[in-house]
């Protein structure tokens, strides 16, 4: 299978270099700002907030890293990898908060640029970081990033009434993902998803032990070979399930899996052939559609005030970029427009549909949400800082008076709870399905 990855130093007409040289260093990406009225100013870049220097800060900094890496035309510098450069490259959570601010042709290519630099680090044998290597190695050995044996993957479903899709037909595959399977505090995410599905009468199955990691974690680190291996396995599994078991919808409760299968698998040449007739949905979206179709109504009253944290990979990462590649509308490579395909309103509406729930929005939300700090391999290599950053988000949630933070991503979920510990806060994060399960 051919994968059309974008490389940092590829010679081509509209290569990444063309785009990162479009950055004007205006620094608009440093903060989330809208005129309103009223005007709102929000800190948006976790990395920049923490480390402070330009270079660390937002996409302005990432353009600088890319220019330095590929040699500045005036300075003609010889690039050398240094531990400090790698630290700057790998403390970005890839949250796309900066990308949401930029208005220049670089905008659609910001995350690709960051990931292409990391892929170059891996290709040159210097990346990812030491702590990440455990994760990559585990992917190689176990098809998951958590060093958990393959046999343990299905442990979470012990005693649950779940159809084995390897043996029985179903139109819906529940792709649980590695985090609930191997990270004990997050196990409830999968358990409650199953419970909710059963309560509302969804016919679904899971792959059990045969499930393979989506590859998101290694892709974000630049380990493309490892990603390709698991992604190709998955595409084959999905196609077989479609042909042989009638699967037409893959549902996942993990924002990382969702973004990866939806947006990253797409660059495989054969993606359309493999995914023909299959839709990928996040649980929040899937349940929301059933709710809108009148398939269920949350009945149990929950007397609680909550707020919602937008996972980056479920919200602002999911976009349809309009780029004028052939120059027929403006000029070659012009960024024309963007269509939000992110899941923003669905979880909010589901939460608000629960009787008794009081809902309060955090200051930073939707496209200008503040990343929990876990993404892009940060939680693995810089766990203390990841939790420290999450504590900032928990603090923001506290300001709403919420008794629980609701989210839709196991990584945010775990990290926000670590952040609460840093702050000695009683405010806990739970997943949307945990809340819904109580309400059904």
């Amino acid at each position, binding site marked *: 299978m051919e994968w059309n990855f974008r490389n940092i130093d590829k010679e081509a007409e509209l290569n990444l270099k063309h785009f990162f040289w479009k950055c004007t*260093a205006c*620094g608009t990406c*440093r903060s989330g700002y809208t005129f309103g009225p*009223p*005007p709102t100013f929000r800190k948006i870049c976790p990395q920049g907030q923490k480390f402070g*220097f330009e270079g660390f800060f937002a996409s302005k900094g990432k353009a600088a890293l890319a*220019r330095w890496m590929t040699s500045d035309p005036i*300075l003609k510098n010889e690039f050398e990898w240094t531990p400090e450069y790698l630290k700057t490259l790998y403390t970005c959570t890839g949250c796309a908060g900066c990308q949401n*601010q930029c*208005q220049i042709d670089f905008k659609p290519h910001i995350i690709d640029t960051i990931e292409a630099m990391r892929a170059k680090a891996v290709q040159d044998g210097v990346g990812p970081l030491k702590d990440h290597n455990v994760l990559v190695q585990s992917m190689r050995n176990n098809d998951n990033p958590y060093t958990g044996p393959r046999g343990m993957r299905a442990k979470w479903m012990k005693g649950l009434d779940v159809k084995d899709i390897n043996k029985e037909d179903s139109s819906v595959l529940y792709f649980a993902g590695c985090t609930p399977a191997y990270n004990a505090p997050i196990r409830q995410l999968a358990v409650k998803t199953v419970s909710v599905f059963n309560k509302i009468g969804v016919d679904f199955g899971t792959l059990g032990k045969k499930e393979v990691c989506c590859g998101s974690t290694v892709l974000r680190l630049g380990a493309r070979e490892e990603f390709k291996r698991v992604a190709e396995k998955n595409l084959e599994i999905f196609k077989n399930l479609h042909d042989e078991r009638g699967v037409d919808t893959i549902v996942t409760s993990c924002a990382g899996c969702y973004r990866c299968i939806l947006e990253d698998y797409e660059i495989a040449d054969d993606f359309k052939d493999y995914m023909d007739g299959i839709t990928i949905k996040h649980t929040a979206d899937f349940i929301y559609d059933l709710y809108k179709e009148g398939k269920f109504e949350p009945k149990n009253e929950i007397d609680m005030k909550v707020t919602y944290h937008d996972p980056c990979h479920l919200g602002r990462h999911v976009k349809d970029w309009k780029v004028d590649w052939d120059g027929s509308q403006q000029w070659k490579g012009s960024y024309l427009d963007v269509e939000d395909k992110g899941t923003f309103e669905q979880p909010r509406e589901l939460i608000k549909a629960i009787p008794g729930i009081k809902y309060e929005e955090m200051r930073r939300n939707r496209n200008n949400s503040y990343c929990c700090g876990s993404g892009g391999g940060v939680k693995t290599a810089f766990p203390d800082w990841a939790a420290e950053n999450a504590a900032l988000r928990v603090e923001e949630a506290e300001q709403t008076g919420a008794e629980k933070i609701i989210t839709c991503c196991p990584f945010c979920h775990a990290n926000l709870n670590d952040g609460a510990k840093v702050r000695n806060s009683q405010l806990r994060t739970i997943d949307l399905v945990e809340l819904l399960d109580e309400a059904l």
Partner: protein
Amino acid sequence: MAGDPNILKELQGIVGEEQATSDKHIMYAYSYDMSFVKNKLPAYVVLPENAEEVQQIVKLANKTKTPLIPYVAGTNIGGLCIPEKDNSIVMDLKRMNRIIRIDEDSRYAIIEPGVSHAQLAEELYKRGLRFGWPVGPPSASVLACAICHGIGGITGRYGLNSEQITSMEVVRPTGEVARVGSCAIQEDSWHSLLPLPLLNGLFTGWLGTTGVVTKIGIFTPAIPPEVEIVTTATDTLQDMYKYMLQMGRYEIADDLTAVSWWLSQVPIPYPYKEKPKDAPEWNSYAVLYAYTPKELEAKLEMFEQTVKDQQKAGSSLQVTQYPEEARRARTELPSQIVGSTKNYSKEAGGGISWPGTFTPANRWVDVWEKWRDIYTKRNLSPSVRVTMYRGTHYGMLRAMTPLNKQYPDQVENARMAIVEALQVLLDNGGIPYKPPVDFWKEIFDRADPGFVQLIQDVKDFIDPNNIMNPGKLLYR
């Protein structure tokens, strides 16, 4: 590692290990901006958090005779934070971002250098107050804009942003802290520079070469509830100038601006594109704020009268309908769309520079005609803006010049256009603002020798070791 490890150690001793660095890739991130100015790496970057740390850093720089460059967002469009000398320290003041107080009754705010336009706009709006928001990046510094004689949306009514400064705290290049204005006499009183000697003049317009401003007070006028934007077009700048002159005399607009056809395109065409024959060459807007509907009505009446008078005198002036998005861009400041350089550089990519000047309005037409030739010969759009300040006293005349930073030859082409344009401008009595070093050469070539000497004497007096942003004033 660049620079002297001992200096880095000392810097780290002041601000903490993580807040000072010599890492090459970080130096690179501070080595360029969007302008035509050539990049140069500093040797150190340091992130102080308060005035005490600033003071210690300045003392260290002075003791070791190390160049020191104040920096907040680096968006000045003149390479003013790019080192001229080797082994420079860039002092990034972003972390000093406290809004210390907003005095709603006396309508002033006390802020640190790292406070951005976006940050202050949010807080002022809550209180029904505003400032002279530039059309620059919302993330840039209010303080840096004000001390560099910045221009904003209320300049027509109140004058430059530097004229809104009410008090100041500075760290002198020799390390002493000084206050100027009312806060010098009474710690809590930041309302006025006058009637004391205007010592703030030692730190405004000096481009960070005379000290580090650690706090300023700024006047924050009210947001009037009524607003209307009136727009016109003319075939020539001569007609537009006459219209603006009459409108300007009434002193009714907060912002009275006209732009050439090329600047009214979003973005500026790059390279040069011919204007359609039937499109007017100049478009203008006047932002009319008022406290009551009646006041607004009176202002609109004056506008209508102006149009009638001009048309009667044979002007090509027409009243135009303004697109909604453009209308909003006039009042919804600071603006992420405009400030992100989208309107200016999106087609060219990577860069923008300008000859940005204050020029007597009655010289605009002569300068424009020459600028248009210079720009078109170099295949660049003559994207020119003219703005009346304080009635018709004088005005801004500037050519937004996008450039493609990826290609040094294109950058050089833009630089040459700008310098040629500046020569014409200076010969017509204009003065450039936020001037890069290339501009100072042209200025000093023409300036009164007494002025040139005085600049140097003041600089030598205040900064005997010439550590503050050295080289930016050409001779110092």
